[in-house]
């Protein structure tokens, strides 16, 4: 177990290092100068700004940057939002993306499991068929289509919910459902098929033969076994949802990290891009590591 842990952590660190290196190489290779706008300042000004942001440093200096971040707790200033440091930007936008993702995952999990059960018990009848079609749509429609439809219905036609922004609970509902939709549909499918597999199992027949009410059979006996695939899906789902979604944030005008990231790339804001890529990478690698450890813990065959 110990050896497994050490090797997995080593691999994760390697992944982070490679991602970081590729990112700054790509950033340096990308065309464009962050300090040249439509109006060009004198060369002396561009030079001074390059010095301030360390863009004149040799490329291998970038490898020292993570070390500075760890030892000083400082990720330096951003280029495009000169009054804010990289850390300021992440501190303000990460909680937004993470909390929206957490809510979306909650919705996807509970609604998905509930709808999956409904589909399994009404197998072949109209609720099941509706759910099958619905989940197919949920999985295949991209979030900008789902988001636009939700906006059209709940914000434009019925004016029930605000069209975007952040700070009010009502503003969170539509983006959370949009973000959840695909995962919800997938979890519902996983639950439904898991339940159907178990329906014919011997222990279910025994439970029924004992005279247990159907609800109890489903909740106590079938669900724990049927939800195993759902549990293993939660790791990647959490990683994907908690890191935020650029598309959903843009449609609903949510000041999250996805939007900051895309803007930073367009502005060639190298410090900000590096900072956000590192946060994304550490989160993704961290979640995967946690999932692997959980598996190893649950299954003694992995070691």
């Amino acid at each position, binding site marked *: 177990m110990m050896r497994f842990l050490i090797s997995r952590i080593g691999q994760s660190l390697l992944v982070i290092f490679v991602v970081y290196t590729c990112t700054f190489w790509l950033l340096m290779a990308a065309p464009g100068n962050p300090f040249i706008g439509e109006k060009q300042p004198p060369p002396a000004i561009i030079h001074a700004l390059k010095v301030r942001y360390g863009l004149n440093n040799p490329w291998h200096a970038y490898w020292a940057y993570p070390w500075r971040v760890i030892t000083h707790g400082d990720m330096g200033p951003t280029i495009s939002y000169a009054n804010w440091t990289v850390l300021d930007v992440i501190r303000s936008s990460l909680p937004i993306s993470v909390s929206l993702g957490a809510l979306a*995952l909650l919705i996807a999990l509970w609604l998905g499991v509930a709808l999956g059960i409904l589909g399994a018990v009404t197998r072949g009848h109209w609720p099941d068929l509706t759910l099958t079609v619905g989940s197919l749509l949920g999985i295949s429609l991209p979030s900008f289509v789902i988001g636009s439809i939700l906006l059209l219905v709940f914000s434009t036609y019925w004016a029930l919910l605000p069209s*975007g922004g952040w700070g009010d609970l009502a503003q969170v509902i539509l983006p959370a459902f949009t973000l959840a939709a695909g995962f919800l549909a997938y979890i519902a499918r996983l639950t439904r098929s898991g339940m159907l597999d178990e329906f014919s199992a011997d222990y279910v027949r025994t439970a029924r033969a004992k005279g247990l009410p159907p609800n109890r059979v489903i909740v106590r006996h079938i669900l724990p076994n049927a939800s195993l695939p759902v549990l293993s899906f939660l790791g990647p789902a959490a990683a994907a949802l908690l890191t935020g979604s650029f598309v959903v944030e843009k449609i609903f005008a949510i000041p999250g990290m996805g939007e900051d990231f895309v803007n930073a790339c*367009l502005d060639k804001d190298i410090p900000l891009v590096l900072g956000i890529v590192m946060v994304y990478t550490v989160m993704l690698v961290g979640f995967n590591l946690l999932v692997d450890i959980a598996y190893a813990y649950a299954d003694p065959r992995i070691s």
Partner: protein
Amino acid sequence: MRRVLIIFSLLLMLIFVGGFWISGGDAARSRAIIFCQAGQIHTLDPAGMTWMQDIRAGLALWQGLTQYDPKTLNPIPGVAKSWAISDHGLTYTFHLRRHARWSNGAPVTTANFIFAWKRMLHPATGAGYVEMFFHISGARAYFNALANPHAIPRPFSSVGIKASDRHTLIVHLNAPCPYFLDLMAFPPFFPLNQASMARFTVRSGHSFAYYNPRFTRPPNLVTNGAYRLTTWKFHQYLEFKPNPYYWDRKAVRCRELRIVSFSDSLAAFRAYQSGAVDVLSFVPPEFTAALLRQQRAGLRHDVHYRSVFGTYYYIINCTRAPLNNVLIRRALDLAINKRQIVDDVTRLHEKPLRVLVPPGTIPGYHSPHGLAMNVTEARKLMRQAGYPDGRGLRPLKFLTNDTDSMNTLVAQAITQMWQRNLGVRIRIATEESKAFNQDSVHGNFDIARAGWYGDYMDPTTWLDLFRTGNPNNHSQFSNSQFDELMHQADIEPNPARRFALLEAAERLLVDRYMPAIPLFQYTDGLMYHSREIGGIGPNVRMITLLQYIHWKHRPRGGTHP
């Protein structure tokens, strides 16, 4: 198993509530006017302001020696209550108001201006608009000496900026500058409160102090304009409240102003339609044509739209063959149906242009004629140049940026006209804006899209772009006759004679040498309901002076009818 699910869900719940609690702004808006800008604020340090949204916020927070008249945009007294200009227009003596105060109550003095201007003139400050200071005598030499590590630094006393006392500032210019008072209202010339910035000093050198940009964030920022900055939530909103010490505070009628921005213009428009935003600083480009149609049909009255002080044009790389041949450049201009572009492609019915400086915007300046469309003449010129019907001409590289989908449409329409009328083949290269800017600077194109909004009400804001050696001269046009006319205009003290020289210079550009092809005058606008909001309006320079904005009447419920 169930325990795992429940713990996991509780954890998610905790993350959601925690994250929401940390990040949630207060959505309460009370009587605040919500003003939506097209982009996020990039900086509130006046030295770094070059973006429209930064300048707009800067003009609300600070005040220069002069300020803009809300109607005419001519410079009127700001911090300076009066000034005297010497006979040759070379010396300006400004008399500062004794009642001018910073938002912390301290008086605004000449020392605040000298501190800010000296900081602007240091290359390490990284001020994008530093060249505006080069009208001041000795400023360019002072800046260049600091920028060159081998040069001997010059003392600041060599620059023509002097204070004879706390309330009298004297500025000497190199040459008469008729728009100098106009510049005095612009952010690079704002004063700064040195005392409040001192504790943000990062390092202090011989003549340079670098300030941690945190000085621009509330509650640290001290300003001298109509408002003070009370809240700034990154990426969410800025909150302005009236500056209690502002000398003209009675003129400030808005008690709370919030500035927001959406990166998606559709999201911004939705927010405006639902009443979550009161003023849009732009008309969403996707809908402009449709909104204007509705307005003309009387279905809505909230689109405030007009021609502005900006030109949409194409520049031609004058150093590369075959476009170093002026005959082909002329032919390219003659072969474009500009009316068709504004009627059928942009569909905003902008004014087609034959000249670079939008005619009628600068009082006293008479624009030259420019070229009218004439395909026969264009074909003749192509034959003269040795490329009858475009035979033998290599495909030309057309460079455009993707900031606005309209750019590509206009380019396609025009290249089609060139192909059909002249047989000229064009390869369109669309690039994202940072790459586009770099390729423009390096002359990596044959023809490129360009757009320019005038910074001050003078023809030189355009004509300077074609002077030899100007870093913004992307067409790399170099003509001694033009440069000589511009130089004569620089030193000409008589305004009428100066304009005549500039007219002659522009005539060289648009009638003879064609380093650029003017297409149309930009239009721009705002969206707001004039029954509810007063004190703003679209003006020719699209400078929205937020200090005059106010509620006229607010319908109950807060939504727009």
